[in-house]
């Protein structure tokens, strides 16, 4: 295996929450959004991250890119540890990692026209380039993502959600990054637009040879894009496997439930199949369950699950499951 482009070791993100009506001396509550997640990404690889809302997917992405400070662990990008880098050096390395956001309109500055929005990253990193040349590159990229270049002087609010997301994609790609983080890029889009944007992302990823972390709460979207899929629950890794293996032979009880929740577009088969529905709600991350965080909703939980973090098994090549009971269930 080639050297990983990105290596994340035991990354932790903890937020301090001030309880309502707190005195200045009351200790703040600790909310652990990401509780020690490790992952590796090869150059040009696409990794999907799935999990329900509140599982820490977005926080993980933002900690990797550095807009949220991490409280533990390391993020090694291309052999350099980003978490210990001083801010100025860090800023210069920003061009290698770019991001696409969930709300396409909110991610675009309403006071700038499309050309300037797409060209802005280029001008920040190469101030000598000149606005005209940068805008010419922006126009080329607009064409590549399926926007008419003659719309370059329009403002974001004149575009539809799907078009705004294409603008966001063009802005993320103009620096030719080596890692692209997509934070639920299609969740806010209309279903009919979703497929187009997902396919565009997939095409561009191949064309530019960029590695990608694709976050979504919808397995059916993720499996189209990803080479590997990581399943998160309450800030912890549950299972990671090559996309095909994860969909065909899910091992972790949580992954099984997630896959069962994807509807089959055939009413007869949909009615006939058994559906293990998860009971209860996601526990509060302020007070997570001891041991395995999934045990409160797990159909195969045992008393010993509460004692410590679950052992990680390796049932297949590149397949890791954080549950010791998968072979017995």
């Amino acid at each position, binding site marked *: 295996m080639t050297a990983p482009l990105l290596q994340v070791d035991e990354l932790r993100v903890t937020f301090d929450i001030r309880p309502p009506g707190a005195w200045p001396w009351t200790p703040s509550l600790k909310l652990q959004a990401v509780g020690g997640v490790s992952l590796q990404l090869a150059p040009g690889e696409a990794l999907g991250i799935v999990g329900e809302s509140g599982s820490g997917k977005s926080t993980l992405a933002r900690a990797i890119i550095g807009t949220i400070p991490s409280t533990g662990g390391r993020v090694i990008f291309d052999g350099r540890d980003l978490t210990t880098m001083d801010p100025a050096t860090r800023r*210069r390395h920003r061009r290698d990692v770019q991001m696409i956001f969930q709300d396409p309109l*909110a991610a675009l500055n309403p006071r700038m026209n499309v050309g300037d929005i797409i060209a802005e*990253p280029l001008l*920040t*990193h190469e101030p000598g380039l000149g606005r005209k040349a940068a805008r010419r590159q922006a126009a080329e990229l607009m064409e590549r993502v399926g926007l008419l*270049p003659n719309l370059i*002087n329009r403002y974001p609010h004149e575009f539809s959600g799907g078009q705004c997301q294409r603008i966001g994609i063009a802005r993320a790609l103009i620096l030719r990054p080596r890692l692209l983080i997509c934070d639920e890029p299609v969740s806010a889009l209309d279903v009919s637009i979703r497929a187009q944007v997902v396919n565009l992302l997939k095409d561009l990823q191949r064309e530019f040879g960029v590695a990608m972390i694709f976050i979504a709460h919808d397995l059916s979207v993720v499996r189209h894009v990803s080479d590997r899929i990581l399943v998160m629950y309450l800030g912890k890794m549950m299972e990671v496997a090559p996309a095909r293996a994860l969909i065909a032979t899910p091992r972790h009880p949580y992954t099984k439930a997630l896959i069962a929740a994807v509807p089959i577009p055939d009413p007869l088969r949909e009615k006939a199949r058994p559906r293990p529905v998860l009971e209860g709600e996601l526990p509060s991350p302020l007070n997570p369950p001891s041991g395995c965080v999934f045990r409160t909703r797990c159909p195969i939980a045992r008393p010993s699950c509460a004692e410590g973090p679950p052992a990680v098994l390796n049932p297949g090549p590149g397949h890791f499951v954080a549950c010791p009971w998968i072979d017995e269930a």
Partner: protein
Amino acid sequence: MSVADTEKPISPLVENWHYFTHSRGALVGLIVFMFMVVVALISPWIAPHDPAVQYRDAFLVPPVWEDGGQWKFILGTDSVGRDLLSRIMVGARYSLLIGLVVVAMSLTSGIVVGLIAGFVGGRTDTIIMRIMDILLAFPSLLLALVLVAILGPSLFNAMIAIAVTNLPHFSRLTRGEVMGQKGLDYVTATRVAGASRLRLMFRTILPNCLAPLIVQGTLAFSNAILDAAALGFLGMGAQPPTPEWGTMLADAREYITSAWWVVTMPGLAILVTVIAINLIGDGLRDALDPKLKRS
């Protein structure tokens, strides 16, 4: 795709002008205000008399339409025989200058202070905002009086004092806007693209916070004129014989019952200017608030 096909940008400025002119009141306000500005600019040439010259044979002459009025003094004269019309025309210079300088000073300093407080947050924010709260806790005119007393009574010191009392309003408004914008994805996107903190603050966030600040600025403009008039009335602003409107009111208060025009004319000038500017402010608020826009 050739360059010729590229659409002309509809700049936000043109668009906002379109909405601004939709409101009749705002347009009237703008016309009155422009008239005031023109009069103020060319007052030395169009004023019928020198505002400081005392006509010893014409004390307290009433306006032309009253019994005993003279065409020589259209709005009458004051207690020492100075022409009121000329004084009001030249006084417009001072009042508009006060508004302009006060708004410029308090707007720039308020934006810088509020931007730092909102963007940096944490302890810096707490310290800055508590200082602003202390400034807000004083009655604004009293605070201005104290500042003028310390600095010495003059028109420029009065402007500084009024600017200081306006500062908390601008910094609070800026801080609130900045905190609202800071969490939005476009700011994160610009940060991810590698923008520096200064660029984020002034180029990315600030333009998106300007709309309410412009509105507050216009309203502060008229307030500054009123405050300066109040300080002038109390003898702490412009010093006689400067024909500043508030100072003119103060000089005339003994004649409120006997010669009403001496106090009414500068009062009317203040009233008309302030109403015009407030109308502009309301129009701007409607034009700049996207929620009030009709397609």
